[in-house]
Each structure stands twice: as structure tokens, then as C-alpha cells.
């Protein structure tokens, strides 16, 4: 392919691609991101290719391996175009039937469709599935339509038109004012207005300036940036190039975690293809603007998501934040003005340029515009990535899109904002998601992690878990963070082990204050949030652990015991046989008894006891009833008595 050298050539080229594409030609798309691979999409892809060949359809049917569609709970997902028939949880054995029935005969295979649990109806089209219906998939939606390894797919959906518009029809001032007007705020954590950040760099002195993509997504359970970079890398590159044009940068970096090999692969392919087409490199589209991008792989440190630590790591040194009181958009990478935004922020930029700031600002709340992608995980029916307009309530996200809590359990809290965020309780479910709204509730937007917890989750243990994560991920440079969290983790661990002391809460609050006020970077300053937010909304749980040595959620192993109710035990032998510690005594027609000394509290007996008996009980904060005497253990069954 030869270079595209002007705006007219780009549009001509795009027309050429579209003219070769018949919208009525059957096309099978299969999600092929990392999560999809984990659920077996590579095997499915191989069979589809083989089967199309076998059934003589290779030339009359298109097959496209796309990025993540978001509904990971039900992956791998196939969507057949143009009818948009959506099949879920596809296994290799389903493929021959899909091709012979749906592709050849145009018949829908009922068993592979989504069943709406409410109405108990089958749903044919992807967009009508409740998981998708309530979303606003502006940034993420294209993932399902393009093969990220083929730039032509991105061009076919209008890709790089925003860049062309910027380079040929707008001055850099106009672009900046559009981005500022849109009030796009950083999707990576801080929520800083992107336009102001760009302006700071633009006005800063210096010939050499940088633009950087933060793809060091590190929050447990969050993977929206991975899915975007894997599934639509050109949208990120296009946004980045526009940012570079605004601030006058000619060199960009993508800092991506090493744990994301597919993202690294796809973005490298995208860069190469964009360079070949003249959309990156020297004299982009013949405009005279030069811009190159390099990919840098991080070594897996959460703290490198912090802007100055990321830049230090990019310079080739240990990823530790800088103590400077100067913004990195003025003094950043190698001491030069550097704009750092995360993957999702950059991917929003082409949309704003194409559709205008007013269009973008229509969506959302007063101070949080546009959409946000959340990674909805935990105790939720529909695990996956969801993109919703800012201002949607947590309740709608969790119940309408997420399908609520599985297993008939009760919702307890939702943790947003990653390890530095906080837990939001049931009474605040009608909170509208937005940067300021979440912060006010003691949590934060962060990069969009959303972990749903049900009644079985112990909130003290949640705080302990996140502190454990952060003590491991802290760089260890400053005292309030390294030492403060070391002590906080010890105290929280003691509380969950039933060794909490009366003044522990006050001490934790003091340590939180020091870390929050005196830490060097945002990691340390926000590290107490998991503790502070759970204390704010679930103080009674802390007190129960400390004062009564009781875990109200019946979750902390050291504080619970399993007990078999002799009145309910039917001596069915199931728990006795399944107990891995051989801690259950009993036999046929002999009531079972747990030996508390041997019990490892693995919970197997509790899980296997048939619900119609419900004999195994979990107890906490009360003494285990004494085992019934040997002589009283025999069950005399009425039917046999006669």
C-alpha cells in the first residue's frame, strides 16, 4: 500500500474500501480479546475458518475477529451480520450448525440465543439484550465491528477523519478550544480536565514536548483500557496524534503493562499500518505535521499508573514518583512538557472532534461529560465492560445492565475507583456516577473499576484486602505510605483474626490522616480510602469484630465456626464424606458432629449439606454448642420403627 498524501486521497481511499464491501454480505464477527481467548474464542475461530472452507463459503462469507464486546460473562460471542443475530457462549461444537443453519438457511438457533431471565424470552439481536440496551457505547461500540489488526476496518467506519479534520480544517487553537469546551476529564483516576492539561503544555516553553498514553491499568478487576487498546488501537492513536498537534509535540509514547501482550501486539501492528498509510510519521497526510509513537512495556507496577512514576519509569529508572511541586505537563518526561492521558481519554478525542464539543457535553452531568466505561465485576450476574452516560445511577448499572446479584443474595456494597476508591452502600445506590458525585460519597471514579459485593462479603476484610494490595504495590519511598500502610495492614489483619483492640479504630484513623496528608504521591494519599469508606458506612462491622469477636458477614475464618444442628441432621453422610479434614464424626443413622479441633473452616460441609436439611450452620460471636452425647446420636427413623 502506498502512502495517503492528502485529505482528498484519504476520502478517496475510504470510498475505495467501502465500495468493495457489500453491506448485505454475511459476516460473522467473533470477539477475540484476552478475556475472550480465556473463554476459548481462539478454538472457536479456528473451527469457523475450517468450517467455512469445508462448506465452500470462504469467499461468500466474511469472518472478522474483533475486539472485546464487553459481555464477558457470556463469551465467546458471535454476531452474524447483517441480521445482527447474537449467539453467546459459543463452543467449537456449535460452529458447524451455525454455519449450516444460520448462514446457509437463515435460521436462528434458539438454544444459542440470550434468554431474558425476567420475561423468559429469547432475544435475537445484540442491541436488544438488556446488558447492551441501556448502554451508550460511543467509545467502546466500534470494538465489535472492526478487526483491530486491519486498519482498513477502522477507516471503513470513518477512522482518522477527525485527524484529517484537525490537520486540514482547524488551527491548533480551535482544536484546543473544542476539547476545553467539551469538558473532557481524564478517565484514568484524577479526573483532571484534559483541555487545561493540554493548554499548560502548549504554553510551556521548550522545543521538544511529549504526549503519552497511560495504559498501565493496574486496578484489580479492571480491564477497560486493555479491551480498548486491544480492540480499537487506532482510535487511541488518532486521539494521541490530535493531542500532539495541539501542543506541538512530535513524539509520543504508549506505556503499556507487560501483562497485556495482545494489547502490545495490536498497538504495534496499528502503529506500523498507520505509518505505512502516512497517518503517522513524517508529513502526516501531506500536512507537514510529523509525529511518531513508540511503545514502552512496563514491568508490572501499580504505582507506575501515577503520572510522575510512569515518566520516571519511561526514562529507564525505577518507577517512583517525583517529589516535585511542578506539574508534569510543564516539567515532565526528561524535564520537558508532557501530556499524559489514559487510553480511554485519548479514545474520546476523535469523537469530540468529529461530533463537536456541544454534542459531547450534552451527555452526562454538570461537571462530568460524555460516557464512562466501567468494568463491572464481583457478585454480579452480568460480568463485563459497560459504557454508560455519566449520571446514570449505580442502581441502573448494577440492576438493569448488570442483572443484579446472583444466587438470590442481597446487595451490600459496590467498590468503585480501584484500590484507592471506596465502598458505596445500598442506601446510596441512587447516586449518579460522576467524578464529583463519587468523591463526595467517599469513593472516586478512578479508572472505572466497579466491584459488586453481596451480603457474604465482610467489609473489614475488604479494607484489609485492598491495604494488602497497596502495601505490596507502594514504591516504598515515603514513610507515611510505606510504614503507615504496613501498620494499617497489621491492625486490620488482627481485627479480622479477632485480635482487634478497643483503640484500633482511632489508631487507624490517625494513620489514615498521616498517609492522606503527608504521602508523596496520590497512591499514598488515597490509600486509606478503602478503610475510611468502609468505616464510614459499615462502622458496626468493625465494632462487631473488635468488641464481640464476631464477623457479621460470617466470612472471616478466624471468627466463625461450623456446627451441625442435631435436630436437622439426617445423617446422610454427604458432608462426612466430603470433609477434606476428616473432621466430621458420624455414620449411617448417626447424627454427624464436627470436631472443632480438626475443622479447617473450608466451608465444604456448609456447601454440600442438602438445602432441604439445612443442618450445617455457620456461626460467629457465640460459643459453638457442645456436641450431643454419643448415646443421643442414633436416629430412629419412624418408617423403620414399624
Amino acid at each position, binding site marked *: 500500500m502506498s502512502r495517503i498524501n492528502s485529505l482528498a486521497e484519504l476520502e478517496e481511499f475510504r470510498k475505495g474500501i467501502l465500495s468493495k464491501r457489500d453491506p448485505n454480505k454475511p459476516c460473522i464477527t467473533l470477539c477475540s480479546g484476552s478475556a475472550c481467548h480465556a473463554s476459548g474464542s481462539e478454538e472457536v475461530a479456528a473451527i469457523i475458518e475450517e468450517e467455512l472452507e469445508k462448506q465452500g463459503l470462504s469467499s461468500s462469507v466474511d469472518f472478522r475477529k474483533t475486539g472485546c464486546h464487553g459481555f464477558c460473562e457470556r463469551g465467546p460471542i458471535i454476531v452474524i451480520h447483517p441480521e445482527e443475530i447474537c449467539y453467546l457462549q459459543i463452543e467449537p461444537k456449535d460452529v458447524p450448525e451455525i454455519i449450516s443453519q444460520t448462514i446457509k438457511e437463515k435460521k436462528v438457533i434458539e438454544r444459542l440465543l440470550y434468554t431474558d431471565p425476567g420475561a423468559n424470552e429469547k432475544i435475537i439481536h445484540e442491541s436488544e439484550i438488556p446488558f447492551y440496551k441501556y448502554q451508550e457505547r460511543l467509545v467502546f461500540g466500534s470494538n465489535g465491528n472492526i478487526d483491530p489488526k486491519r486498519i482498513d476496518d477502522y477507516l471503513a467506519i470513518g477512522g482518522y477523519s477527525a485527524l484529517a479534520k484537525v490537520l486540514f480544517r482547524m488551527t491548533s487553537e480551535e482544536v484546543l478550544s473544542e476539547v476545553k469546551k467539551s469538558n473532557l476529564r481524564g478517565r484514568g483516576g484524577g479526573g483532571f480536565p484534559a483541555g487545561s492539561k493540554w493548554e499548560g503544555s502548549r504554553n510551556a516553553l521548550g522545543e521538544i514536548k511529549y504526549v503519552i498514553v497511560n495504559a498501565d491499568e493496574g486496578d484489580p478487576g479492571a480491564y477497560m483500557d486493555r479491551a480498548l487498546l486491544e480492540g480499537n488501537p487506532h482510535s487511541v492513536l488518532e486521539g494521541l496524534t490530535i493531542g500532539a498537534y495541539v501542543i506541538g509535540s512530535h513524539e509520543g509514547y504508549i506505556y503499556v503493562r507487560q501483562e497485556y501482550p495482545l494489547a502490545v501486539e495490536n498497538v504495534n501492528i496499528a502503529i506500523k499500518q498507520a505509518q505505512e498509510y502516512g497517518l503517522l510519521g513524517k508529513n502526516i497526510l501531506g500536512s507537514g505535521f510529523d509525529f511518531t509513537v513508540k511503545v514502552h512495556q512496563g514491568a508490572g*507496577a501499580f*504505582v507506575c499508573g501515577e503520572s510522575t512514576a510512569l515518566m520516571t519509569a519511561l526514562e529507564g529508572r*525505577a518507577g517512583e514518583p517525583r*517529589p*516535585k*511541586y511542578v506539574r508534569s505537563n510543564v516539567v515532565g518526561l526528561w524535564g520537558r512538557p508532557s501530556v499524559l492521558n489514559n487510553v480511554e481519554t485519548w479514545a474520546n478525542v476523535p469523537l469530540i472532534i468529529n461530533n463537536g464539543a456541544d454534542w459531547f457535553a450534552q451527555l452526562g452531568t454538570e461537571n462530568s461529560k460524555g460516557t464512562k466505561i466501567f468494568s463491572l465485576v464481583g457478585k454480579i450476574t452480568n460480568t463485563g465492560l459497560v459504557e454508560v452516560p455519566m449520571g446514570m445511577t449505580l442502581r441502573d448499572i448494577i440492576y438493569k445492565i448488570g442483572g443484579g446479584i446472583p444466587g438470590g443474595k442481597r446487595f451490600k456494597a459496590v467498590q468503585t475507583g480501584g484500590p484507592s476508591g471506596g465502598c458505596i452502600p445500598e442506601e446510596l445506590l441512587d447516586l449518579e456516577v460522576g467524578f464529583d458525585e463519587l468523591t463526595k460519597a467517599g469513593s472516586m471514579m478512578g479508572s472505572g473499576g466497579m466491584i459488586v459485593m453481596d451480603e457474604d462479603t465482610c467489609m473489614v476484610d475488604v479494607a484489609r484486602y485492598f491495604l494488602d494490595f*497497596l*502495601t*505490596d*504495590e*507502594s*514504591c*516504598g*519511598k*515515603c*514513610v*507515611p505510605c*510505606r*510504614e*503507615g*500502610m*504496613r*501498620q494499617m*495492614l*497489621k491492625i486490620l489483619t488482627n481485627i479480622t483474626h479477632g485480635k482487634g483492640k478497643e483503640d484500633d479504630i482511632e489508631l487507624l484513623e*490517625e*494513620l489514615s*490522616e*498521616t498517609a492522606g*496528608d*503527608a*504521602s*508523596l504521591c496520590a497512591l499514598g494519599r488515597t490509600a486509606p480510602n478503602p478503610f475510611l469508606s468502609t468505616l464510614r458506612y459499615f462502622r458496626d462491622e468493625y465494632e462487631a469484630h473488635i468488641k464481640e469477636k464476631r464477623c457479621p458477614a460470617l466470612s472471616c475464618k478466624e471468627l466463625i465456626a461450623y456446627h451441625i444442628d442435631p435436630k436437622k441432621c439426617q445423617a446422610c453422610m454427604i458432608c462426612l464424606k466430603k470433609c477434606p479434614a476428616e473432621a466430621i464424626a458420624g455414620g449411617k443413622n448417626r447424627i454427624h458432629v464436627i470436631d472443632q479441633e480438626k475443622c479447617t473452616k473450608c466451608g465444604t460441609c456448609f456447601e454440600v449439606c442438602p438445602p432441604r436439611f439445612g443442618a450445617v450452620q455457620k456461626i460467629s460471636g457465640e460459643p459453638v454448642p457442645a456436641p450431643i452425647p454419643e448415646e443421643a446420636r442414633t436416629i430412629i427413623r419412624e418408617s423403620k420403627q414399624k
Partner: protein
Amino acid sequence: MNEILLQIDGKEVGAREGMTLLMAARSAGILIPTLCHHEKLEPYGGCRICMVEVESRGSTKLVVACVYQVEKNLVVRTRSEKVDRIRKMILELLLAHAPDAPELQDLAKEYGADKDRFEKEASFCIHCGLCVRYCAEVKKKNAVGFIDRGIRKEISFIPEIASKECWNCKECFPLCPTEALQAAFVLTRALYTSPLSNKNGCGDTYRGQQ
């Protein structure tokens, strides 16, 4: 020379542009405690004990004096209830590592820090980084460095470099506020001169070659 006037603890202080609050305060005879600061080294901002309150354009914030630069009309308070509380906590956290370090003990007296507030930790090191930075920035040898991160972070001599550079230098020793550095050095020497890790089979011979 452009003199910048600011106020530290109610006293008018003149400073040069680019000076840190710590330098300005010291030049005016006002004491701000430090643990990781050294004149010859780049500001590190790690121990956070030099935290002070600054008031500028109507808002108050906490900053570390060893990094924050002087500004015209800045109002600085080197002691306040909040500052003292932070310093006390930092000292108590560090005393769990090095309860007998004289520098920490003196400060503990000043700020009412209880050396037994937290359970004692195994290492004496308070991670001030003076040895690491002095070796890198002044001696340019990098014979001692930090390894690992978070709560597992510790100082360690790099045996290959230390065996060549350290025996006759040891300039970092007096910088260490605790006994940790010497301990790490003794350990390195013991390991490096043990018959097991030396091809010549004799540490003295090896050292004699330097």
C-alpha cells in the same frame, strides 16, 4: 540578585529564587527537622518529616520544605498542631525500626513520640536513601541500592561493585542515621569473602588484589 521576601514563623525572610523553604529557613536560623536531606544531594522528599504549612493566595496546604521553593509573600508555619501530629506519627513509625537511633530519639523527645507505639520491625533501615543517593550522586559508583518495593524494600550492596569500591571508601557510613547500613555492609562482606562464593577460595587473597 532577585530577592524574594517571605514570612516564616512570623519572621520576614529574604531568599534567592530557586531556594527551597528548608534552605531559606536555615539561612534565617529557623530549624526544620530532616532525615533524608543532605546538602550535596538532590532533594528526595522521602521521610516527609520536614513537612510545613504554607499559605498562599488564601489557601493553606502542607508541603515538604526540602522540595518546595520559595515564593513571594508566602506565609510558612514550621510548627502547627497538624504539622506536629504528622511528625510525631512519622517518628513513631520509624522508631519501630530503629528505636535506639540518637537522631530519632532526640526528635521523639521534641514531638512527644512514643517509641513503643508500634510493634518492633526487623530492619533498622528507615529508607532515608542517604547511602544509596550519596553513592550514586556524589561517588557515582552505585555500589549500594534499593531492592524490591513497598514494605519489602531494603538497601543492599551490589557485591560485584562493592567488592571493588567500598573497602577504601565507606563515606556513606557516617551518613546513616541508624545501624542498618553497617549491618548490610558486614553481611555483604561476609557473603562475598566466604569460600563458597569466591573462585579463589580465599577472601583475603581476593581483597589483596584490589
